């Protein structure tokens, strides 16, 4: 065999095989991220059933709310879905249509849960700190949002009786718009802790102080 000769067909064959394997790899990867999207849809369906159940559950417990004060319907599922949405957003990009749809749906579920929780607080004296958090994933619009999110996660992990509801400030949905209008939310980050609005970054110490204050006021009100 003459080894000086360049075998054109060999180069072409290898080029074709490489391209084929390469795209098979990409397709397999794509297949698995599709599986994940389907899993997100499963979660969405689960949540739909869940919320229906909760609504009925709520109607039942509304008659005697104080019996159920310590249970926190939906909040765990919501948190799980939130984490998965973050993941999806990172994987698919924040302009992905599925992500935008799911986010909108998620926001509505959050508001639904928030209303339920507020109702419980009024009717049967449930003792929780409710936090509404308006963020933006746009680093130019809100450079401190990543830190703010981290501080709130810290609060959630370190205190039991705190519910955090996060809303992308850019979510276009009448329900979210209404909440925004009620509190006059225009910039990110805005953090509303038990009806008290704070614009701009809220430090860990500020949040912890508010939570501790609340806990002691709850404790006092129980004593009275």
């Amino acid at each position: 065999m003459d080894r000086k000769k360049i075998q054109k067909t060999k180069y072409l064959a290898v080029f074709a095989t490489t391209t084929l394997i390469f795209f098979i790899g990409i397709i397999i990867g794509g297949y698995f991220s599709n599986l994940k999207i389907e899993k997100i849809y499963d979660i969405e369906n689960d949540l739909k059933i869940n919320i229906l159940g909760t609504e009925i559950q709520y109607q039942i417990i509304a008659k005697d709310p104080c019996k159920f004060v310590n249970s926190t319907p939906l909040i765990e599922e919501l948190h799980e879905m939130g984490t998965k949405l973050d993941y999806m957003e990172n994987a698919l990009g924040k302009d992905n249509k599925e992500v935008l749809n799911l986010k909108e749906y998620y926001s509505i579920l959050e508001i639904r849960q928030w209303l339920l929780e507020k109702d419980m607080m009024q009717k049967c004296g449930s003792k929780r700190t409710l936090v509404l958090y308006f963020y933006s994933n746009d680093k130019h619009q809100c450079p401190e949002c990543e830190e703010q999110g981290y501080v709130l996660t810290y609060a959630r992990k370190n205190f039991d009786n705190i519910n955090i509801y996060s809303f992308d400030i850019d979510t276009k949905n009448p329900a979210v718009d209404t909440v925004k209008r009620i509190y006059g939310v225009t910039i990110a980050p805005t953090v509303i802790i038990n009806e008290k609005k704070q614009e701009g970054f809220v430090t860990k110490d500020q949040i912890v102080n508010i939570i501790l204050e609340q806990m002691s006021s709850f404790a006092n009100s129980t004593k009275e």
Partner: protein
Amino acid sequence: MHLDFGTILVYVMSYFGLFTALFFLLTLYENKKWVKTPRVKNFPSVTIAVPAFNEENNIRLTIKSLLKLDYPKDKLDIIVIDDGSIDNTYNIAKEYEKYGVRVFTKRNEGKGETLNFALRHAKGELFGVLDADSWVNRNALKKLVAYFNDPDIMAVTPSLKIGKPKSLLQKIQAIEYLFGIFLRKIFAFLNSIHVTPGPFSIFRKSFFDNNGGYRTDTLTEDIEIALRIQSKGYKIENSVDACVFTRGPANFKPLLKQRLRWYKGFLDNLLNYKSLFSSKHGNLGLFILPGSLISVGLTVTLLIYTIFKLSQNWFKTLTLWYSIGFDIKKMLIPNLDFFYFNLNSITYLSIFMLILGMIMIYIAKAISREKARIKVNYLYYMLIYMPLFGFWWMIAIYYKIVGKKIKWGSKYI
């Protein structure tokens, strides 16, 4: 899909790596009948030179292994040239004069001059060098000589292995050298060998007579001579059955020094032999030489990018930790849900490349009849060698750009 610079880089690397691996495996498959060394037909006279500079601890093993070579004694001429050592190298070598070894000493001039000194005293038709930190298998010379039937073949390279690897870095080099055995055989099939390693490559002495001796202005005379042979249109062969052992540097610093010399020497010589980058020189000019530069470029880019990303991430993590006053106990509980395990295309391509690499190393193991167990070492190799390789090249390229000089060390490392 999310396409940032890092993702694109990994895709390009995978594609290029896959192409190269498939090309090499196909080449091996096409030539599988020719992997083994042919039977030796005649025994031309051979001079083996041992250049030695402060090698009193190693030189006995080197000379003894040469004396044990299975080769007609009247056709084998062994010469030791002491390059002005300040230790006992010369006296130890003199002990072997009674076995016919010719021993010379001269003032210290460096390796290139020492090899030219050896050429002037060489009597054989063939000429080989064995560094004083290396030793050979009994049948190595017979296997190498078997290829010299074709008059166009000017050099034959052996299978180079790390002898008695002890330190972690030596074990990693052992894998690297196994990889080298595979590559050198493939390069031989593609007529693209561009390094004739210092330890025990055998040359036709007439090539030096007609084209001049070793150049003394290069850091890597073993690359220069190979490129010179290629540029004259001659061939370089490889015998996988001829095993030669060398001591790899055991520690980080001497290894770095060795690699800087090799890699900068490689760049210097490629610039001197630019004309080889042409399809006139077949696979070497079209794919092997450009490919080696591309792979170096990609590795260095990936390393710089990874360092940049890692420090960026660390800075971010520190900022986040600062924001909660470093009360991180509960933040560190990892999320072990399988859902978040990132099984994307890049993961699959990387696993695939890892397996391809393993296949190539096992082929090398099989064809060079290496028996050592290497599974764990392969893991170390994948984890440690890749960043090290990028790091060495990064510094070598930097030295090349700023024109910094690298010198030989206290030994010929």
